[in-house]
C-alpha cells in the first residue's frame, strides 16, 4: 500500500574547498512514502540541509557534486537531470519551505508578484486567474485581509505572516512532496504552534508528503510518522516515531533524548553527550560517533558499522550486532540510572 514517492540510495555529496575535497554527506539512505511525514533530525552541520538541497538540485554547481548514489522521485532519477528538467519539477512536483522567512522572500517585489511566478511558469494561468488563485491560497493558510496583503511588500509583514506566505508559495502548484527546512526555528513558540497546526491541517486536506527537517525533537514528536536521525553526514537511526521515542537504539539518539531538560529532574545535572560534532575532515575510519559514545569498544574505532535492520528500525551501530546485544542491554540500564 505504501508507495515510495522519494527514495535516496547511498547518496554522497562532495564539496571542493580549495585543493581539498570534503564529503559532508557520506552515504545517506532513506525513503518517503506517499502521504507520510518524515522527520529528519540532527545537529547543525550533520548534513540535513545539504541533503535537501541535493534533492532540489540546488547545490552550487561549481564547488559541489554528487559523488555517487541516486535520488529517485517517482522512479525518476533526479541526480542526472539537467537544469531545464529540474525547473519543470521544482515548485511544481517538489517544493521547499526555507528556514528564514525574513531572508527568503525578495524585498523588492510584492507578495503577489512573487506568488505569481510558479503559477505563470507551471500552470500557464492568466493574470486574473492567478490572482484569484493566490488570494484563495493566502486565505487557506490563515492570513487575514488577503486581498490587501497580495499587494504588500514582505517588510510590511511579521515573521509568522511571512512564513505563512512561504507556505502558500510552496503549496500553490499542489506539489506531491514538500520539503520544509526548519520551518519554525526562527519563530516564537506561540507562532510555531500556529504554523505547525497549519501544516498539519493542510496535510490532512491533501495527500502530499512532507519531509520535515528540524533539530527540535518536540516538533518531530508532534508532526512526524517516521523519523530519520542524522549524525555527521550519515543516517544513524531510522524508525517509526513511537518506536523511536519508546526505544531508541543508537547511542546518539539516546543521548539526544536524555539531554533534553524535560527528561531530567529539575535543577539536576543534565545528561550530556561529551565533546562535539566532528568536522567532515576529521572523520577517519570507524564509527563517526565513536569519540563521543559512552559504549565505545575496539570494533567501533576500526570498522565502520553497517546499518542493522531490526524490523523497520534501522540503527547504524555495532551494538546492534548480535554478539554485542547483551552488552548494550546492560549498558542502557546503567545510563538510565545515571
Amino acid at each position, binding site marked *: 500500500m505504501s508507495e515510495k514517492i522519494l527514495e535516496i540510495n547511498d547518496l554522497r555529496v562532495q564539496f571542493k574547498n580549495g585543493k581539498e575535497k570534503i564529503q559532508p554527506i557520506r552515504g545517506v539512505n532513506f525513503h518517503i512514502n506517499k502521504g507520510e511525514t518524515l522527520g529528519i533530525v540532527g*545537529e*547543525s552541520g550533520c548534513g540535513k540541509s545539504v541533503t535537501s538541497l541535493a534533492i532540489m538540485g540546488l547545490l552550487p554547481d561549481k564547488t559541489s557534486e554528487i559523488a555517487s548514489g541516486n535520488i529517485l522521485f517517482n522512479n525518476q532519477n533526479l541526480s542526472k537531470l539537467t537544469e531545464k528538467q529540474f525547473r519543470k519539477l521544482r515548485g511544481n512536483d517538489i517544493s521547499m519551505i526555507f528556514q528564514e522567512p525574513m531572508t527568503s522572500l525578495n524585498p523588492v517585489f510584492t507578495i503577489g508578484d512573487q506568488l505569481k511566478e510558479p503559477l505563470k511558469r507551471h500552470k500557464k494561468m492568466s493574470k486574473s486567474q492567478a490572482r484569484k488563485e493566490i488570494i484563495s491560497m493566502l486565505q487557506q493558510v490563515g492570513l*487575514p485581509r488577503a486581498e490587501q496583503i497580495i499587494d504588500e511588500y514582505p517588510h510590511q509583514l*511579521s*515573521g*509568522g*505572516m511571512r512564513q505563512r506566505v512561504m507556505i502558500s508559495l510552496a503549496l500553490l502548484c499542489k506539489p506531491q512532496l514538500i520539503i520544509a527546512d526548519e520551518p519554525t526555528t526562527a519563530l*516564537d*513558540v*506561540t*507562532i*510555531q*504552534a*500556529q504554523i*505547525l*497546526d497549519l501544516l498539519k491541517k493542510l496535510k490532512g486536506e491533501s495527500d502530499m508528503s512532507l519531509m520535515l527537517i528540524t*533539530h*527540535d*525533537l*518536540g*516538533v518531530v*514528536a*508532534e508532526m*512526524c510518522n517516521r523519523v530519520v536521525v542524522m549524525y555527521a553526514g550519515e543516517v544513524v537511526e531510522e524508525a517509526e*516515531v*513511537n518506536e523511536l*521515542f519508546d526505544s531508541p537504539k543508537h547511542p546518539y539518539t539516546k*543521548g*539526544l533524548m536524555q*539531554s*533534553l*531538560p*524535560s*527528561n*531530567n529532574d*529539575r*535543577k539536576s*545535572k*543534565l*545528561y*550530556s*553527550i*561529551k565533546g*562535539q*560534532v566532528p568536522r567532515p575532515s576529521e572523520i577517519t575510519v570507524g564509527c563517526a560517533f565513536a569519540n563521543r559514545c559512552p559504549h565505545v569498544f575496539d570494533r567501533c574505532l576500526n570498522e565502520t558499522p553497517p546499518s542493522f535492520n531490526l524490523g523497520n528500525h534501522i540503527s547504524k551501530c555495532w551494538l546492534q550486532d548480535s554478539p554485542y546485544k547483551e552488552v548494550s542491554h546492560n549498558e542502557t540500564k546503567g545510563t538510565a540510572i545515571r
Partner: protein
Amino acid sequence: MKQKVLLSVKNLKKYYEIPQGLFKEKITVKAVDDINFTIKKGETFALVGESGCGKSTTGRTILKLTEPTDGKIIFDGNDISTLPYKQMRTLRNRMQMVFQDPYASLNPKKTVREILIEPLRVHKKFDNVTRLEKVKSILEIVGLSEYHLDRYPHEFSGGQRQRIGIARAVILQPDFIIADEPVSALDVSVQSQVINLMLELQREFELTYLFISHDLSVIQHMTDRVAVMYLGKIVEIAKTEDLFTNPKHPYTKALLSAVPITHPKEKKERIILKGDVPSPANPPSGCTFHPRCSFALDICKKQAPITTEYSNSHSVNCHLYTEFKEETTHAINHS
C-alpha cells in the same frame, strides 16, 4: 529562611523615541513599561517572553548599557539608576553579562588570552602573572584548556565560544550575572553542556542569575522564579513550579500550551493564540493582551489591569483576578 535581596527593580521604564520628521510628533516605543521585580541572593530569576517583548532591553537597562528612562534599580542596597558612567563602570565587576550570540559577542581580532585578561585589566585587579594564572584556572573551570590560550574565536565551535563568553563574565567573580539567551544559539547536545556549566558555576561561586530566555523547557529546568513579559510589561511572576503547574494569566497559559510535546503519545490541549504580537509603537488600549485573549472582558479594552497578589509570591496582571472572583477563575479552569 529569609534571603537577602540582591537586586530590586522599581517602576523601571525604558522608552525609545522615533522621530517622524521635523514637524511631526515623535512616536514613543515603550520597550519596557513600568516593571517591578526583586531578585534574592543566590537565586535564578527568569524573564520569559516572545521576541520584542522587552526582556533583553530589561537586562541591558539593569546593567545600564542603555540608560533607563525612569525608575529605580537598587543593587545591594544602592540605587544605581542615576550613577555616573565611571562609577557604573567600576560597579560592573560585581555584575556581568553573558550575551546571546557567541559568534558576535567575542572580538574576532583578539586571542582568548586577551579576551579573558581584559576584564581584569580594566578593573585593575592583580598583577600580570596572577592575571594569567586566573585566566588559566578559569579556562579549566569552563572546560577548555591552556593550549586554547592563543587561539582566536573563529577557531572554536559555538559551544566553546559560549564557554569563553561565560568565562569572561565569571573571571571577575561577580555576584550577579545577566544571561541573555545564553543557550538559544546552540545545539541540543551542546546546550545541555552549557546549562550544566552554568549550574556548576552557580554552586561554586554563589552566583545570582537573571536568566533571559524564550525556551520554557530550559527555564523550567534551571530557574527558581519566573517573570512572564508581554509587550514591555510583566504579566505574571511566580515560583517556577507554581507557574508551570498552575499558570494564571491567559497569556502564560497559551505560552505554556504552545510548547511542543515531548513524546508522540502525549496528548496536549492547546490554546492557539490568534494573530501576532502587536507593535509596541502602537499598543492596544487597556490591557495590551486583550485583542488576543479569549477571556477578554469589557473592562480589558479600557483600563490597564494592576498587579494583583494571587497567593504568596504569585502575582498576576489581569482583570480576571483583580477582585479575586471565585466564579471567574472557575470559568477559566473549566473552559
